């Protein structure tokens, strides 16, 4: 009996040991398996034969491990096999025969079209793959646009093998844009801003990074038309127009953020005094501490001047974007 138990114990141990061996990763042989099946896309077996679930990033840093992994493409629109337009791996990465047919354990040659961080594939070659399908629509003006001529690749901003493409989500889009646009990041941290950090407005609400017919990649033909998509009450036309507002909202406003109230580039009264120093009280173009009142500045005028404190000129001249009131010639109605 003891011997039976001994044999059984040995056999069980053997049985346990063999699957454990099977669960250990084999020594890397980077040749694709002959019997590999498509995992996600039609014809992807020639790639997923190697780039399978064992490849997904775990933090263990194995040789085959890619970061990011590739299989997450299945979670996205690019992974929908039933859509006849969906490309397979080689449609984007090229046929890559040398990479696919590589045998042995040393690192294989790169794919024909690599989208990795330090890729040597030129930006326009990478973009050509994407533009095979994604031309027209928002990308109609891509050729010759600021990003295209700056050799920005589609994958500089977009993540295709990721369940979530950060730049296409209003909550995370700004992080992608701020990777390059540091000045705008700094401005978005100022005291007066659009709701960029709160996720209420994304960069793409005003800009089309793929190219546009307007200046500075704006979504509309002019700056004012872009602003008026949300600020429709300022469109007019008005009976009494305020020339700097009608000309260009950017004459007075800094849309990415400002240290002045209402996203202004400079503060009243000085902003206003840069154009108005003519009649009445505007002949006093150098408002100073004297206008804050003796209660705040010793020796100053007895009364604080409404042209200086509070909203300054806008304490009276409120309709600075234009007025439709017959008595609004001076924007006080």
């Amino acid at each position, binding site marked *: 009996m003891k011997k039976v138990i001994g044999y059984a114990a040995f*056999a069980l141990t053997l*049985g*346990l*040991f063999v699957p*454990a061996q099977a669960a250990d990763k084999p020594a890397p042989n980077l040749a694709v398996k002959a019997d590999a099946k498509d*995992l996600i896309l039609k014809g992807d077996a020639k790639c997923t034969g190697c780039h*399978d*679930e064992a490849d997904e990033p775990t*933090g*263990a840093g194995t040789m085959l491990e890619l970061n990011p992994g590739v299989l*997450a493409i*299945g979670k*996205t629109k690019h992974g*929908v096999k039933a*859509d006849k*337009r969906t490309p397979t791996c080689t449609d984007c990465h090229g046929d890559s025969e040398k990479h696919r047919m590589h045998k042995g354990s040393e690192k294989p040659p790169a794919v024909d079209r690599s989208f990795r961080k330090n890729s040597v594939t030129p930006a326009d070659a990478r973009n050509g793959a994407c533009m095979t399908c994604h*031309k027209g*629509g928002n990308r*109609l003006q891509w050729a*010759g646009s600021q990003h295209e*001529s700056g050799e920005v690749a589609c994958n500089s901003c977009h993540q295709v093998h990721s369940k979530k493409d950060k730049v296409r989500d209003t909550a995370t889009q700004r992080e992608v844009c701020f990777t390059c646009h*540091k*000045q705008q990041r*700094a401005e978005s941290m*100022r*005291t007066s801003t659009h709701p960029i950090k*709160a996720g209420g407005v994304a960069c793409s609400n005003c800009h089309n990074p793929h190219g546009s017919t307007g200046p500075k990649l704006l979504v509309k033909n*002019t700056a004012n*038309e872009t602003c*008026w998509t949300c600020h*429709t009450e300022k*469109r007019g*036309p008005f*009976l009494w127009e305020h020339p700097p507002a*009608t*000309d260009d909202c950017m*004459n007075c406003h800094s849309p990415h953020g400002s240290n002045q109230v209402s996203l202004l580039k400079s503060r009243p009264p*000085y902003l206003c005094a*840069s*154009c108005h120093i*003519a009649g009445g009280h505007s002949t006093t173009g*150098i408002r100073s*501490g*004297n206008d*804050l009142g003796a209660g*705040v500045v010793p*020796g*100053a005028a007895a009364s604080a001047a409404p042209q200086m*404190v*509070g*909203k300054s000129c806008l*304490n*009276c001249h*409120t309709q600075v974007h234009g007025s*439709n*009131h*017959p*008595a609004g010639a*001076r924007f006080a*109605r």
Partner: protein
Amino acid sequence: MENTVENRFSRTLLAASIAAIGLSAPTATWADEAADEIRRLTRPESEIELGVGDVSGSSFKFGDYTGLNKSGAYGIANISVVRRNDDDARFLEIVGRNLGLDSRSLRIEGGEQGNYSMRLGYSELPKLHSDTYQSPYGGMGTSRLTAPAGWAGTIDITPGGAINPPIGTTVVTTAMMTQLAANMKPFEVKTQRKDLALGLTKLLPAGWDVDVSYKHSKKDGTKLLGAPLQIGAGGSRGTLLVPDPIDYTTEDFGLTARYVGEKLQMQVGYSASLFKNSAQPLVFDNLFYNAVSTVGGNMLTGRLGQMPDNQFHQVSAAAGYTLSTDTRLSGSVAFGRMTQNESFLPYSTANAMPATNSLNGKVDTTHYDIKLNSRLTRTIKLTAGYRYDDRDNRTPVNTYTYNTADVTTAPGASNTRFNTPLSKTKEVLFGDLDFHLSKATTLKLGYDYDSVKHTYEPTAGDKEHSYKAEVKHQFTAMAAGGIGYTHSKRDAANYDGGGALTATYTAAYLAGLCVIPNTFIYNGIVTACTAAASATGATTPWLDTPSLRKFFLTDRKRDKLHAFANISPADNLDLQFGASYYNEKYPEAELGYGLKQATGTTLNFDANWKATDAVTGTFFLSLDDFKTDQNAHNGSTNNIERQNNAAAFQAARGGVVSITDRSWAMGLGFRVKPGGKYEWGADLTHASSMGATRFNNLGTAIAGTVFPVSDTNTRRSRLDLFGKYEVKKDVAINLNYAFEKYTSADWAWDGQTWTSSTSLIGSGIINPRYSVHMIGASVAYKFQ
């Protein structure tokens, strides 16, 4: 013997069976796990997160745009559902964020990929203006603001004494409002925007698709406006900030048909935007009321106009054609029309109407552009194009004789004005050449030509030439940098500083501003002055300082320099450096008045460090310094002295206002993701600003009256800590903590009381300052 063989066979058989079980059972489990793993990695996943958070303090500034302005608990509710069928292309996506807050958003999209999709989006956005504002009015939040009961009787206009001259000429001041402080009431000034958007896209055969969209935007609440009244002779006005009701609705419609072919892509579309303002004009009682005033001030109410309803319709078409693998041509056209024909209000609360009932406002917009992009050789690429934008304002010009700020006395000659429907045409010609000097070096040379034409402006237009050059170089696989320079020069056509404003008045009024026997040109006609001859009287009617130059119209020289460097000293460390500088000069304003120089410097530094596979850190620092100098004056009442500033800065009454705007921002963060059940991290951010206003080169006549102002500043610091723990495979607990502190100082509000100004009733607004703690705990459930 037989027994021994049988026993031995039995033992062998038993051992083999047990081994077979040991071989087969784990193998079958491993295959299921592998299939599950592949499904988990390749199928879309969804997540629902529910929890509760708490904010320790109330502050509009803290809660601006987020809705976290009230202390206390709030619901955490986020949802992300992504479903894609295995067998067909049907899909459904639902993303809901901040569903427990006034900044909630929900987006739903579904359909059949490659065939059609429908989308619905809903979002809310709170804009919190002030939680410290006060006024004595009743009815705040409505279109009728009423003075406290018996208010007029509490205004002390008793003649004589310390504050009051004789009855009849008294201009009521805030000091005379004996019950002002007692009647101050707080009111939260805020607006809420709610948007609902619907859309449908349908793919059609042969490369076509069509998209239809509709958006309904509603914004209501209040925002602060000044409510001035004429309360005495000349420029005597009393005013205060009041909550103006906002009730805006905008409806946007869009219809686009698109074609995508191998070489040709194009689209045609129509869009309409309809704005409607349902708020009634704001009527407010006169808090500076003086029943016996003979020079204004005895009107009972004032009335502010609202933003008028308007519409914008536009048709557009765009196309791009790939002439060859190296050359592409693209362009677009768009024609639009803005209209506005809201009925006018009367000139004043006395209800006299203008001759015309409404504006009949009409602006036609035209845009077209064309662009060529071509690879001329293997190493040279050209982009060249032309853009045309025209705003043709066809609004009729009429005469309006108005009461200033609801004054009851009859309008004077200076109150008859013509409206000026502004038109503008802008043409831009541009060309860029990109050279690949080597595999590592690119050079860009560019030229832009802008031409602008205006109507009703001091200048008929301007032309600007810009030249740019930029070099980028890849030093090694780990280091790259670049530098760029742009020079622009804008020249305005003949600039007549006083002309534009003068043309809005009548010839008769202008003639009365200058003395016999002088003449002036009015609309091309020689017109005689009519004021009595005088040695110090004006020889020409002037209304704008002739030597004033408006910065957006006048001559300008601009230089911009920028540089960057990206270095990866190690595989796990990326460093980015950036700097820029610009200098703008306005030569004619340097001689006369207006903005004469603006400079700006920015510096940026970023570091991204992957310490281990589990630990990453980031750091950034930004420094900005902007400065403007403008020539200004505290003018005199001497007409000759003022009008003779035709070409020069008047030193005795002049000075330079220099404004510095300096900010710095930094961020430090790290993430720990060891790959197990938990991850955590922290972010620390800080942003500061300083605004300094200085007065230099003050003239002898004014130096004694110009006092310094203190610097303004803002400081915001925030610490975020977060952690995530995976209780089970699909269930995680999220914990968040944030602390944010904000301080600010601004001389426009600091130290101002209800009566600091005799003619501006104080609002009680305090510069924002808060320290807020926020904690949140939620459970997130993932499913496929």
